[in-house]
């Protein structure tokens, strides 16, 4: 891979990371205040739809953005009503919001535009377009010829939509709010010990609603970004589980803003790879080495634990070994002889590449990247009278 490919990949990673980042920070504010929010996905989706629809109708992407934020806040308030006021199960409320958004966006889009549950394509003016910095090259073919610095400047720095730059700014802003303001102190406290906040004379309910609304705003921007900056219009289920990946990134980031940036960029990279590299070819021997090494590592880990670990991880290892061997045997069709087959290149199934972010989420959650301790009062309604 040459330098320019790297730059392109980085560029795409940033673009793909922004919705994750915004959603992740939304989750951060919410969870830091003690409200789990698996409805990030639904809020983004609803915002994506309304932002696209309103941009289209008004012809102004900013108006669309406001509409997206509005609907996202509305859903946040429903979540707040269920989990703060009525002390319901926060997971279930989040699931309901996800379904609600998934269904309603299509129903309303159909009723409004009659195009099978999507909005018509947005014209250029109704979108957030890339901003070209002074002196930046805009065409790939020009950039390819340019020197590395110009490539970096033109591709990586310049050319994103305003929402990307704003999105990146929310990271230091969130950090500042959390750690340098009174509100941040109280927010962090209410997710850890709401009773301490309550007895200090601060309203837990108001604080939590505020957090949930902030989450709504951020999800709103994330959704609008997807439909009016990344894509030109809304399509059914277009958030593609970014809300859940954002939650995993949040855990990976240990509920901290700067870490969240790193985690989201990493996931953005996965998306970029999936988008860009269709035909990843690998030599059989590398595939086998990778799979066998993973199997061996898991088995070794399991051997030192209990029987259950051995059963599950051993079984998984067996599957990996089987896949490795199957690849090898499959390659023998092409090559003559077992040894030659080892050096045959095979295409990594695109489904596997697409599954990488999800696979990585599981690995992250498995805690192989460090133990993450969630806010202590997270997920539990604050009940002072039983």
């Amino acid at each position, binding site marked *: 891979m040459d330098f320019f490919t790297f730059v392109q990949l980085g560029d795409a990673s940033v673009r793909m990371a922004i919705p994750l980042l915004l959603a992740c920070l939304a989750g951060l504010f919410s969870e830091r205040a003690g409200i789990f929010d698996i409805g990030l996905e639904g809020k983004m989706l609803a915002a994506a739809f309304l932002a696209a629809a309103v941009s289209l109708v008004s012809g102004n992407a900013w108006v669309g953005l406001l509409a997206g934020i509005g609907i996202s806040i509305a859903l946040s308030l429903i979540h707040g009503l269920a989990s703060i006021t009525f002390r319901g199960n926060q997971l279930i409320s989040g699931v309901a919001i996800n379904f609600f958004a998934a269904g309603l966006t299509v129903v309303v889009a159909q009723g409004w535009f009659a195009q099978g549950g999507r909005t018509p394509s947005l014209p250029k003016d109704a979108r957030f377009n890339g901003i070209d910095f002074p002196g930046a090259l805009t065409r790939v073919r020009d950039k390819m010829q340019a020197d590395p610095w110009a490539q970096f400047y033109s591709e990586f720095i310049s050319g994103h939509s305003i929402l990307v730059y704003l999105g990146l700014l929310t990271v230091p802003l969130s950090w500042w709010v959390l*750690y*340098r*303001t*009174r*509100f*941040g*102190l*109280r927010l*962090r*406290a209410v997710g*850890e*010990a709401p*009773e*301490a*906040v*309550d*007895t*200090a*004379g*601060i*309203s837990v309910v108001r604080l939590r609603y505020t957090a949930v609304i902030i989450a709504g705003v951020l999800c709103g921007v994330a959704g609008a970004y997807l439909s009016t900056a990344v894509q030109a219009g809304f399509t059914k289920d277009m958030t593609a589980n970014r809300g859940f990946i954002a939650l995993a990134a949040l855990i990976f980031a240990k509920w901290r803003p700067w870490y969240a940036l790193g985690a989201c960029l990493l996931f953005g990279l996965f998306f970029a790879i999936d988008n860009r590299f269709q035909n990843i070819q690998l030599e059989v021997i590398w595939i086998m080495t990778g799979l066998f090494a993973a199997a061996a590592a898991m088995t070794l880990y399991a051997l030192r634990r*209990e029987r259950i670990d051995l059963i599950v991880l051993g079984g998984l290892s067996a599957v990996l070994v089987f896949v490795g061997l199957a690849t090898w045997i499959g390659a023998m069709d092409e090559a003559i002889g077992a040894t030659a087959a080892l050096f045959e290149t095979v295409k990594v199934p695109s489904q596997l590449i697409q599954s990488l972010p999800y696979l990585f989420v599981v690995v992250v959650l498995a805690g192989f990247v460090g133990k993450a301790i969630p806010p*202590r009062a997270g997920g539990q309604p604050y009940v*002072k*009278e*039983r």
Partner: protein
Amino acid sequence: MSAQTQGGQTPAIELKGISKAFGPVQANKDISIRVMPGTIHGIIGENGAGKSTLMSILYGFYKADSGEIYINGKLTEIPDSDAAIAAGIGMVFQHFKLVKNFTVLENVVLGAEDGPMLRPSLRRGRQQLKELSEEYGLNVDPDAVIEDIGVGMQQRVEILKALYRQADILILDEPTGVLTPAEADQLFRILNRLKEEGKTIILITHKLREIMDITDTVSVMRRGEMTSTVKTTDTNPADLAERMVGRKVLLRVDKKPATPGEVVLDVRNLDVVDEKDVHRVKGVSFQVRAGEILGIAGVSGNGQSELLEVLGGYEEATGEILLNGQPLDLSGAKSDGQSRRARGIAHVPEDRQHEGLIMNFSAWENTAFGYHHDEKYQKNGLLMDNSAILKDAQEKMDRFDVRPPNPLLAAKNFSGGNQQKIVVAREIERDPDLLLVGQPTRGVDIGAIEFIHQQIVALRDAGKAILLVSVELEEIMGLSDRIAVMFDGKIMGERLPSETDEKELGLLMAGMTDTDAPHSIEEIEQNLAHAGEAE
């Protein structure tokens, strides 16, 4: 604010006709009380009498259903804690309200910040905290994180929080429950200082001696009502106890001398290290014989709970435990509560609500809890015999006088004492070789205490071995045939109840071994403080 209260004319606090119900439970009934400024006012009452509820109402944590609050003679609405703080009230709750992963400074400043920016608030907070600490001798490190400091220290933080908010009225709900005697003494010195400064203090406690020592007036609550208020100088402990319970109290267990038999439980060199790598139990050895009750005394948090958990099969340990001469597995991997029960160990856990019972299960299901593998509860090899369990439950509940004797009722619908009876019935009726009992009468009323004690003694008389863990010295003294004292994970010594007294046990609980030379008061206090912090 306390300026115009000369002559004790205007009470600092006056409550009129406060009532509060939690669903069907009437926690406070038409309560009225006056507290004069610059005094310490004690409140006593049995568990569940409504003391905490009343104070929480005064502090705006709960809202009263009816009634009025006057502060310094002025009718004051206290809808939330913010209003209470504004009215100059500070409260130290029975269960601390601190953010565990915040520093002391952050906890103190929380809710009393100067402005929207944090740093100026913290700067001023640090300054003020230093002054307050010096003024009252409340030594705390402002940058220490709460979860790293002991309970005594945490309580100081709570008091500092109130003082930082310039409280003139300070409410303390059972502040000494978690303190060692030395820490309690220090607390009382501080309270006296505050009183001298003209602050008004309300102190809730179960310890009559504390009431006698420090308060000026005392109120007694019973079953949600305020039964009487008297000057402390006009009363005595016996009188107070009678007012509290409503009848003469004579708490003594009736039992014959023990006739110990074979060694049933033999613990040798037991060590427990918990998940946080804290060494909880350090090389403990002891024996319990058939037909004998061994009581383990100690300030809570000195390894007794862990000891019970290891014996109950759900904590790992190293060392050796023999039951009837056969070793128990201590690795945790091959042992659990099930295998312990199979070996004839029954266990009345310390926390009935979270361990002993499933609150949402009905009583009959709870009577099989832990014993659901028992042969008599199975049918056809595959299914549980629910009707057999139900029948069994009914019998147990009748025998143990559980009220109401309805096995279909969910456990959560029984009062604390009756819940405990269900647990005790289940464990004792199993006819175990060894009964582990943790805090059998915590939060249980006097009638039930008597009954439970009788049952434990009856089991002993039937020739079973009993290991009793309790933080109530009275209970230990009254029930045990032998007493071992734990401190900091070690057994400091063993005594016969007839040959010792509370004073000697108290010294052992503070870490004085048998061989130690006579001690200075300071040394004892230091050790006691340490015992408290081990929690």
